[in-house]
Every structure is written in structure tokens, then in C-alpha cells.
């Protein structure tokens, strides 16, 4: 973890010290404001530190699903910094809320499987509870069961479009920039298939790409081909 990844860029130095000219005024509110000098730059830019917390490793199938689905919209600390002692029912309904209220791309069997995993690693459930085994069994992932490969559907269901845009950087690099970087690389497809399935960070910056374990080889190849064509 490095604190240096966080900094602020200003095109001209911030004027401070003017603080001392502000006088505590009487209790009329709102009161007339004392002027203050503000920055005379027009562009203000920040860069944010990446998350350093990862999901606890487990053999339960919900682990791989959570790796892929639960870091699309937010960092893992949303999950890690929850109360201890929550049971399978509570965790499963927390996961259900992600689908129901926020449109997380997960189906009912994903919800049960991820809920089972989270209640084992963070809550009161045990790996060998019959209910955990039952909830973990039914995992037929939405993307594994897709027979026809539709790149647009894959991009949406796996949350790729939340982090990638064709033309501009969001959390991850623009697909155009990726295509550009690998345009002379004859091995590009297999490299990108690996990147998609295993995720990673450091090639484009400090933000991490979640591993997409449930994207099979054929689907990952289709995605890589699509990206390289941009």
C-alpha cells in the first residue's frame, strides 16, 4: 500500500493563509460573506489510491463468482467492512439487494452461491453446513450457460461496460487504447484472453481489473477480438 499514489494537481499554487482573514460573524444566518481568494486555475485534477483489500480465498464456488461480480461497481471494502456474525440469510439478502436495487448482473443461483460464500468467510456459517452445500451446488453461471456468443451481452452481463468505454478511460483503459497498444502484437488475442480471465493491475495504472473466471475461453476470445478491432 502506498500513500504516494494519491496526489492533487493544480496548475497554479493554491492560495492559503487567507483563512486568517475570516472573522467569526454574529449568529444571523446566512450572513454576508467575507471575500476570500480562490485558486485562479481552471483545471483541477485528483488521482485516487487503489483499494488494497481483497476477498478471502475459499474453495466454495461463490468465491470465484464474487471475485468477478462484486468488484464491478465498488471496492471489496464495502463487503469487508460489514458487521461480524451475520448469517447465511442476511448475507444472501444483502447480495439479493445488489441485483434487485442496483441491477447487479447476477441470477438467482449466483445470489445463493455468493451469499453462502460470504456467510462462511465473514459470518456465522460453516463450509459443511447442509444449507451452504445446497446453496453452492446450484451454480450454473449465467455466462457459462450462454450458448450463442453475443459480445454485447457479454460486455453488459459481466459489467465490462461499467469500467470500459470504447473511446475514453473510465476505471479501466478505453478499448481503443487497448487495441492500439496490442496492434503490432501477433500474440494479442491469447494475452488479452489471459488478462480478461485473470484480471490484474499495473499494466495501465494502479486500478485493478477483477478476474472474470466465469468467462470461458471461447467467450474471452470473442471479447478480445472485439476489443482489438476498435
Amino acid at each position: 500500500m502506498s500513500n504516494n499514489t494519491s496526489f492533487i494537481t493544480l496548475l497554479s499554487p493554491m492560495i492559503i493563509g487567507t483563512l486568517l482573514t475570516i472573522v467569526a460573524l454574529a449568529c444571523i444566518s446566512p450572513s454576508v460573506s467575507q471575500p476570500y481568494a480562490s485558486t485562479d486555475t481552471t483545471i483541477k485534477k485528483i488521482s485516487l489510491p487503489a483499494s488494497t483489500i481483497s476477498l478471502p480465498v475459499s474453495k466454495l464456488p461463490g468465491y470465484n463468482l464474487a471475485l468477478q461480480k462484486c468488484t464491478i461497481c465498488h471496492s471489496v471494502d464495502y463487503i469487508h467492512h460489514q458487521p461480524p456474525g451475520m448469517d447465511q440469510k442476511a448475507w444472501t439478502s444483502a447480495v439479493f439487494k445488489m441485483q434487485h436495487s442496483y441491477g447487479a448482473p447476477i441470477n438467482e443461483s449466483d445470489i445463493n452461491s455468493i451469499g453462502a460464500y460470504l456467510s462462511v468467510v465473514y459470518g456465522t456459517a460453516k463450509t459443511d453446513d447442509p444449507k451452504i452445500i445446497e446453496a453452492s451446488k446450484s451454480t450454473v453461471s449465467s455466462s457459462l450457460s450462454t450458448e450463442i456468443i453475443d459480445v454485447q451481452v457479454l460486455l453488459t452481463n459481466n459489467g465490462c461496460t461499467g469500467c470500459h468505454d470504447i473511446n475514453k478511460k473510465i476505471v479501466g483503459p478505453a478499448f481503443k487504447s487497448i487495441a492500439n497498444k496490442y496492434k503490432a502484437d501477433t500474440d494479442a488475442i491469447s494475452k488479452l484472453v489471459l488478462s480478461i480471465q485473470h484480471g490484474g493491475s499495473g499494466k495501465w495504472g494502479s486500478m485493478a481489473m477483477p478476474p472474470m473466471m466465469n468467462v470461458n475461453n471461447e467467450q474471452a476470445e470473442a471479447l478480445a477480438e472485439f476489443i482489438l478491432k476498435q
Partner: protein
Amino acid sequence: MIDNKKHLVQKSRRQFLRNAGALALGVSPLRSLAATDNNEGVSLAGGMRPLVKYPEKRDLILVHSRPPHLETPFSVFNESLITPNDAFYVRYHLANIPTEIDLNKYKLSVNGAVKKTLQLSLQELKSMADPVDVVAVNQCSGNSRGYSLPRVFGAQLSNGAMGNARWTGIPLRTVLEKAGVSPEAMYVIFNGLDKPVLPTTPDFKKALNIDHALSPEPLLAWGMNGEDLPFLNGYPLKLIVPGYFGTYWVKHLSEITVLDTEFTGQDSYFMNTAYQLPDNDCLCITPGSTADKNRPISTLPVRSFITNISAGDTLPSAKPIELEGIAFDDGSGIKNVDISIDGGMTWLASTLGENLGRYSFRPWKLAVSFPQKGNAIVMVRASNKNGEVQPLRATWNHGGYRRHAIESVAINVT
């Protein structure tokens, strides 16, 4: 004692207390304790929350990193009545947040049921009227959620998701009047530059009643404690709603829409589905049950804290000790702040300090003397001019919102 500088960010009240010398405050282990316990008594599935450094911020407690959610360590409230910009808490909901803002491109758009839609640059906004100031508390609806029992899902905050600042801007109504609000207008909707990651997630938008929006209180602010807003607190423009919970104080404000209909649809989620309280007298419910009706959270209930001692401190017996702290409410005005040093059996009236305005933290202090050695419980209870008094026990709701029960601090007297 009149000391304007006392409320500026650099001055530490604790330092002041030490310099004053006359009063004995035992060498307190409390700050060192606070430095190691970033959870401030809140247990978490994943263990301790780290301290982190974000742009324009000192080390703050990490709640979430993407999007950033940072809590102010409680010791900061012992430094000054005004919360310094670099210590002010940060809260986002959606991870697609702006990281670069160009004032040559930034515009606030005002649209909907208005005579004339507006596209205002920050400069145009600043020259529309004389700027005004208000000192007001911004407290997160979920401040202290980590103490909710039974526990609830959500950001497990201790007491540091609040802050008191001097906000500089122009009244919201100046802009609404310029646009010409329709006589049929019902609500005003506020949207900022932060966006959801997936299009299936609701955008973060908040609504104010038209009457409230046209009242003198809400401000469109660019200044915070005499500087531009820190980026993570909503640069370049933030909606200030004095007396209301922080959820209404929309950051990176970019769009104001006047509605002559109800606010509905996917993007009304954070107004109509989240941030709800049971719609009954206590705004509460028995754990495990569900309310028949809910209503959006709104104003701040009366609340108070002791800021210069905390749990586990050791204090000397039979010596005068000056306790200090803060109280605040929805702007009705703090009436009394009472202190008990015997676990709530008897109460003593404290002296209220400088009044920076009815929406500000109000400082209080009281010299007490602990008669006996051993464990003691110090409690603080505020009441306001509207007749509200802090309750002894916290009530419960599903969101873990609006905690304002009397605070108790367990100490050792030697």
C-alpha cells in the same frame, strides 16, 4: 472569552486546555488509544479500518475506497469548533466519480418546469448575487450506524461522519427565481457529476420540496472555511441544506430540475426507496419487523458529544476538570446541555459558548470534580428550543439512520 481565532482550524482546544494550566486534566491515554482503534469501538467482519491519505485530506479512516468514503477521527472535534477542510468526512455512493474538473467547461444547468433554462458557469453564478455565509453542520444520515443494535448492513460508521463548516455561496432561490419557477412546481431535483458504474444502477439524485427550495436557507456553495471546496467534498459547487442530513447536500452539483409532478422512476431510488425512516412518531421500529409506511429522512435531531475525554481515559479525583463538547440540532437552537458524572442519576447544567449561528456546532463546557476513585460514567444530554431532548436509549430502524441517543463515556478515576 472572545477569541475569534479560536474557531480557526489551526487552534487546538486541547492545546488551549493544556496551556490554561489551571485545570487538571490527567495525562490522557485517549488520543493514543484513538490512534490505534480506528473502528472507535465498532466491530467489523474484516477487522480494523486503516487510516488513509486522499487528495487534499490528512489521514482519515477508510470506510470504502471505490468510491471514496472517509470518516473523520473523533479527536478532530476536540481541535476546533470548525472542522478543518482536510479533516472533513467524505461520502460518495456511486463509483463513477469525476477526477478532473475544468471550470472553463463546468456548467450548472437549471431546467424542467421553468420559464427559461439556464446554463451557468461558476463565474456567472458567483456574480449573480452578493455571496452569503452560513456555518452549518453536515451530518451523514448513517453517522454512528456501527453502534446500531441489532447490527444492520451499510457503512459501519462511528461518530465521525459529521463536520461543521462555514459555507460560502448564493441562495438557491436566486438561481430558481432567475429561471422563473412554474406556479405548478412541486419539487426541485438535484444531480451531481457522480454517475453509476452500470446503467442499471440508479443515479444519485435528491429532491427538496419547492417551498423549502425557495426559502432563504439552502445555498449553492463554492467556498468552505474560506477556501474552494475540497475536490472530494463536491468541488466546484455543493448544495448546502442547513439543518438537514448530509444526504441532501449534493456534491459536484451539475443539474437542477424543477418538477411539476411527483419524482418517480429509477433515479428516484436514493430519495424514495433508500434513506427512509418508519413514518411514525418515534421514526423507529421493533427490530425484525417492517414499517407499514416510510418517509424520507429529513432534519437533524438534537445531539451532543463530549470532545475532550473519551472511553478508557484516566482522570484524577477531587480536582476540577473542565469537560468540553459540542451540541447541534436542526436550527431550532440549543437550549441546554446537561452533564451527568454519576451515570445519569443527577445532571448539571453546562455553560454554552460562542454562537456561530443556529445551524453550527454550539460549544459547551463545565468544570466537574469526581468525588470518588473507581469507574465513572460521564453522560451528555442536549435539549433544544423546540422542546426536543435527547433520549436515553437509541431507537432502531433498518437503515441504522439518525442515531441521537445520549452519549456515555466510561472512564477511570484515580
